[in-house]
């Protein structure tokens, strides 16, 4: 199988698996307990916290562990429950929907490449929301925002700033002090750690209200017994990313493969277009094929060639909701329904790219030939 859906989740690193097995095999006890096994668990957790903090340039005490990116995002919107909050129109649902549900939420528009529109951002600044939340890089398109600049403008207006860095984490260099943000969401399984653990960076002295209460863990910031094995795996993955300078590897090895995939698709497949524009994450490519529907492309690739990719939207229950991200950028439901996302990982090879470019043209051609939609210029 050729796996090109790393943005959905990535295989666990051997280093992370080993760290988790060490915990599971040696029962370290409850990290909150005062006995020796408890101390051992506590030490493992604090070591992981330090490794994660180091990777993003934070102080260890500015990191709390959560169950994942969605909880971290929900924690942030919950702090501002009932208050005015501005989020970009292309946020992950765990920001967008939780902000709409809990806060007085306004949305910031993006341009056709997914970049924050200056005019929209300036308008939002004048409304003085309590919080602005803009993702560092978009999960469907890969578009990277100029968070440092946006956070600076927000702060000049006395507005706090959160960024969901779930996709960017481990793919590009991130330093929270340089970006000067107040909250940042990260998740373990996107960098080769386990599913079920994430973290939230909370800058020293920033307002905070816990989402989960009923325990003193994380200095009262997040109740619940520590998931020691998951946290150990997360820490090991972060250590690996730091020690092997993984963002550099993505830039040098993965970005060229992604670029080659993009240029070959656009050149060799008629009626294809790219939804990914620079600056983008090194590993994501979102493309649309006129008259061919995304889910069908996905299933053909899977069934005929063992290639796993994802779609931005699927027709479910007849509501036919297209991807909110592509609707926010190009506002064209047909483009949205006809889009697929490739996301590459450290194990992706040139052979993988060759295989995709070998089988994809026929699949697209077949779907275009039986489609009710006529490709432009086609008879």
């Amino acid at each position, binding site marked *: 199988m050729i796996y090109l859906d790393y943005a959905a989740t990535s295989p666990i690193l051997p280093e992370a698996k080993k760290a988790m097995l060490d915990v599971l095999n040696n029962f370290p006890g409850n990290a909150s307990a005062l006995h020796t096994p408890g101390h051992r668990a506590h030490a493992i957790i604090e070591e992981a916290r330090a490794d994660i903090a180091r990777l993003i340039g934070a102080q260890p005490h500015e990191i709390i562990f959560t169950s994942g990116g969605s909880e971290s995002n929900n924690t942030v919107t919950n702090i501002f429950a009932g208050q005015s909050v501005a989020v970009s129109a292309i946020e992950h649902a765990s920001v967008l929907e939780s902000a709409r549900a809990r806060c007085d939420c306004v949305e910031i528009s993006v341009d056709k490449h997914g970049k924050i529109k200056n005019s929209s951002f300036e308008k939002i600044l004048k409304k003085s929301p309590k919080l602005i939340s803009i993702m560092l890089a978009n999960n469907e398109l890969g578009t990277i925002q100029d968070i440092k600049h946006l956070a600076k403008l927000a702060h000049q207006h006395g507005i706090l700033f959160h960024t969901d860095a779930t996709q960017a984490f481990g793919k590009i260099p991130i330093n929270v002090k340089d970006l000067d943000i107040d909250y940042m969401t990260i998740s373990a399984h996107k960098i080769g750690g386990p599913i079920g653990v994430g973290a939230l960076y909370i800058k020293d002295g920033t307002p905070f209200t816990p989402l989960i209460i009923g325990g003193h863990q994380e200095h009262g910031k997040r109740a619940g017994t520590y998931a020691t094995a998951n946290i150990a795996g997360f820490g090991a993955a972060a250590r690996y990313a730091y020690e092997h300078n993984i963002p550099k590897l993505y830039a040098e090895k993965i970005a060229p493969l992604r670029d080659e995939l993009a240029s070959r698709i656009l050149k060799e497949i008629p009626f294809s277009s790219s939804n990914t524009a620079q600056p983008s994450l090194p590993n994501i490519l979102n493309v649309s094929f006129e008259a061919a529907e995304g889910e*069908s492309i996905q*299933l053909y690739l899977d*069934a005929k060639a063992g290639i796993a990719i994802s779609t931005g939207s699927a*027709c479910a229950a*007849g509501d*036919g909701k*297209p991807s909110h991200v592509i609707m926010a950028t190009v506002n064209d439901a047909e483009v949205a329904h006809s889009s697929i996302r490739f996301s590459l990982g450290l194990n992706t090879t040139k052979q993988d790219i060759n295989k995709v470019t070998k089988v994809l043209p026929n699949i697209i051609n077949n779907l275009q030939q*039986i489609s*009710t939609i006529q490709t432009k210029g086609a*008879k």
Partner: protein
Amino acid sequence: MTTKQESEDWVYSEKVKEHFLNPRNFLMGDESRFSRDAEGIVGNPICGDQMKMFLKIKDDKIVDIKWKTYGCASAIASTSALSELAKGKTLDEALKITAKDIDNYLGNLPKHKFHCSVLGHEALTAAIEDYRQKQKD
């Protein structure tokens, strides 16, 4: 809570896969190459699926059927299945083919994809109505 059955409901049956990967009676490329007596179109690409049925009719019987579909695997499999079910039937018999018949023929679509079989049924009905209208004119 999601039961095991409901979870499995997301998975396509072998028959759906088979029809999706090897669709029957579809019309490749240029539509005008197929001389037909009637056609019906339903759905909208903006909603993610659209189907078009082309019928050749002789003595009130569907002697040949072709289709085009823009949509997901279920939409393609549904149209393919319907074309098999309708071929050779009289128009009255064909009108009696329900969405449920298409669903049964395919060994059940995932629940959230049942609307694809409804669309198939509507496309065939639209084509037959088109034919009957033309006969009246």
